[in-house]
């Protein structure tokens, strides 16, 4: 069984990012980059599945500039077998990424594509579902538990009302949610050691242009601290005066 894990290099989710003064972009000076945390959960899950079934082969793929190699090396250090890097500095949107991944899938023929439910930079939550549609494979998004048996994936997935269990035949696309696992910590020597694992550079296979364009970036309105009240009665009185309580 072959698991393909697409990963994205994103702005450190804990960084405090501000827009540029003219609103044409983000001020990224001094900002670090990481594997998208949901994709990191996907890598971790693939590695845990491989620990149960050593016949699993894990291929990670990233689409992005030369610096994405850093995130691919980390995924290799976590336990992926092989990395593919579709190197491009083009502007991409989720539907382009899905098409590029479709091209990779046609070459690699994975049994399962496992990736984050969304990237924490653009927060779109689209790529995996678009990919599943293009491949006409079944999908299970927002997974909190994954079991493979009998040519099927049984996926417990988070829903608006709690959770559900879907059984989907392989090949399939699965996206990870927060509660699936906690990724292992990889010390720096581990990342250096993984340098001997294969990393192959690929070229883009489509020439699509983004169909959604960002015109401007702004900071949202901020809230400021209000008033401290001393008692429950005072709180009720304040809320009543604001019409927040009947």
């Amino acid at each position: 069984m072959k698991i393909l894990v697409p990963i994205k290099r994103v702005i450190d989710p804990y960084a405090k990012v501000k827009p540029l003064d003219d609103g044409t972009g983000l001020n990224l000076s001094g900002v670090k980059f990481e594997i998208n945390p949901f994709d990191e959960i996907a890598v971790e899950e693939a590695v845990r599945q491989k620990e149960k079934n050593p016949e699993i082969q894990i291929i990670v793929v990233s689409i992005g500039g030369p610096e994405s190699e850093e995130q691919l090396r980390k995924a290799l250090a976590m336990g992926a077998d092989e990395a593919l890097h579709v190197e491009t500095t083009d502007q991409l949107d989720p539907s382009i990424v899905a098409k590029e991944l479709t091209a990779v899938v046609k070459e690699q023929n994975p049994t399962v594509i496992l990736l984050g439910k969304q990237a924490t930079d653009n927060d779109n939550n689209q790529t995996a579902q678009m990919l599943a549609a293009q491949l006409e494979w079944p999908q299970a998004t927002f997974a909190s538990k994954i079991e493979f048996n009998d040519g099927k994936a049984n996926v417990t997935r988070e829903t608006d009302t709690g959770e559900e269990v879907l059984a989907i035949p392989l090949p399939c696309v699965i996206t990870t949610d927060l509660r699936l696992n906690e990724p292992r910590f990889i010390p720096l020597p581990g990342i250096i050691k993984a340098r001997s694992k294969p990393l192959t550079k690929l070229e883009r296979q489509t020439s699509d242009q983004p169909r959604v364009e960002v015109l401007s970036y702004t900071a949202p309105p901020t809230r400021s601290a209000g008033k401290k009240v001393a008692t429950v009665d005072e709180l009720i009185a304040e809320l009543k005066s604001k019409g927040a309580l009947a």
Partner: protein
Amino acid sequence: MNLLLIAFDSEDAVTCAAFGQSSNHPFDILQLTGLPATNLGAGKVISLDLPSLPPADYFAAALKPIAESYDRVAAVSSMRGKDALPRLAGLLDWPMISDITEIVDEKTFIRPILAGSILTKVQLNHPKAFLTFRPAGFPAPNLAGESSVESVSPGWKGTSKRLSESLSEGGRPDLATAKVVVSGGRPLKDAETFENLVGGLADALGGAVGATRAAVDSGIAANELQVGQTGKIVAPDLYIAAGISGSTQHMAGIKDSKIIVAINIDGDAPIFDIADYGLVADLFDALPELTQKLQK
């Protein structure tokens, strides 16, 4: 410009109509389950009248021929919307814009990125698109007219099989659209205390119950109650944060609330920096007192 709103049930149809009416474009509603919502100003309600919601592969294949005759197809940015809509967008190869908070014009929208720390203005460079929107940005719809109902039985095709599902327990309003939300954090100790204190206050206010990620991870509150960047984004008229210190990821999910009240024993908790009213007090005294005084 014709707009199709996909409503998963009749309650969802009301939220959809809020977006439809705000767009100032004529719209139809496609409703998957429940009694067709005919009083929301839709041109027509396409009723599928299903006993339950289909998995995303069935959903997308069945709705593709209906969706493709519209210019915009939109749904609430709930987990079911986020699951199903991009698959339909992938089938039709249309672009998609997620989590819209404001409509600028038919091609231009405002949406947050980076967990709400930045707002972007985005423009479509394509005649057709899928959209999801956050309910908080759009005022409740006016009741209007009597829409015609078109019953449709699409062809169902897919391979997913639902083995089990948890259903909403009902009784309390939906967290994502509730007017009042009472949320609790880890200091609530255990599930029973959480339900009594947070649930009790929510019931006294006719509100929904929310929780922090720490409360969910420690097992004292259910997963689907998690409020924040990785849980549900809420924007009620009144948000009461009880025993919540105010992590960045939690605050990202509540900052569009009209009034935020924080009750916490630690007067230096970051939640007080964004709260309209702060009460530094022991939860185990303040919550029962507040509940009791509101019940009178």
